């Protein structure tokens, strides 16, 4: 997953509005009770913005790590052994549970289970027997990226 322009806008909106709600009423001379009520709502907005920001940062770090594996990793293959749909969706994209037989040259075959959020048109293509490329971390072959 990666943040997009809407994501940046939402972080700015929640963060800016939340901060304004926290500090605006006291600066405008509102009484303590009003300030507290508005500030508590503003704090929720700020926390939402912080949460979105942390999630975005986590995805940026994960993407950088995956890029490193792509550049430096060992290329292998993963054969789909089983496909499960968790019936959970993230932004209209299904969370798929894939059981994979991963074959890394020099390491051997190992079975892994991987959960991946995929666009619908990708999820529809996941079926038993499908072979997908993987790139494995040379230091930890269990740390791999599945190319779909």
């Amino acid at each position, binding site marked *: 997953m*990666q*943040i*997009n322009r809407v994501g940046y806008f939402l972080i700015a909106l929640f963060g800016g509005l939340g901060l304004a709600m926290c500090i605006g009423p006291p600066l405008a001379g509102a009484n303590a009770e009003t300030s507290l009520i508005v500030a508590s709502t503003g704090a929720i907005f700020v926390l939402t913005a912080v949460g979105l920001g942390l999630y975005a940062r986590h*995805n940026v770090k994960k*993407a950088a790590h995956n890029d490193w594996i792509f550049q430096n990793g060992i290329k292998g293959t993963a054969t789909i052994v089983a496909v499960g749909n968790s019936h959970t969706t993230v*932004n209209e994209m299904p969370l798929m549970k894939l059981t994979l037989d991963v074959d890394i040259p020099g390491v051997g075959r190992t079975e892994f289970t991987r959960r991946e959020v*995929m666009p619908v*048109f990708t999820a529809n293509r996941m079926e038993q027997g499908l072979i997908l490329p993987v790139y494995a971390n040379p230091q930890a072959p269990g740390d791999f990226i599945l190319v779909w």
Partner: protein
Amino acid sequence: MADLDASYAAFAAARGMELVPGVDVGQLTPLLVESTAGGQLNPAARGPLAEGVDGIVGHLAYQRNKKFRFTVALTQVPSSTPFVPRLFCIRKGRSTRDDEFYGFEARHAKLWTESTRLNERFTVTTGPYQDPNWMRQLFSPALVDWLANKPPQDFSFELAYGTLLGSVEEDDPGPDGMAALCDATAHVAERIARECEE
């Protein structure tokens, strides 16, 4: 709708295609997923899009906050999946939905090209972890020049796991428009297939 049926009947007859009342091609590409009906083309014609390239041309319409209408041409390039599982070349400014605004999306990579004309006209994206050398070979100067100058003005294409969908943002582009869409889609299909063979 009667006019649309007549257009497709005339086009199918002229191009040696078989008119089909409606066909569900499935949710195979992002545009086909947008359709709440799930890739329902109605009307549609099946047969040669161009010499040596078979496929389906059809009318895709779906309702979100407003009605979206496209004319699409669908064909297969099965050899492309190992090389480029996902490749989207979308006209800048195209809208396929207006009722969902999500802050996070599946990771993709934008293709960088030196062609100002191409960059002005299209946004080209692929899946992440795509071999950049292969992409540079696919987007040869000839293809870049062709994309920038030759296809219909509102043409876009989506390649997903061997399924290629060319599309224009018109309800009824007429015989010439449909022919141009079929020719453009077939040209892209041939170019991708040729690069996969090499």
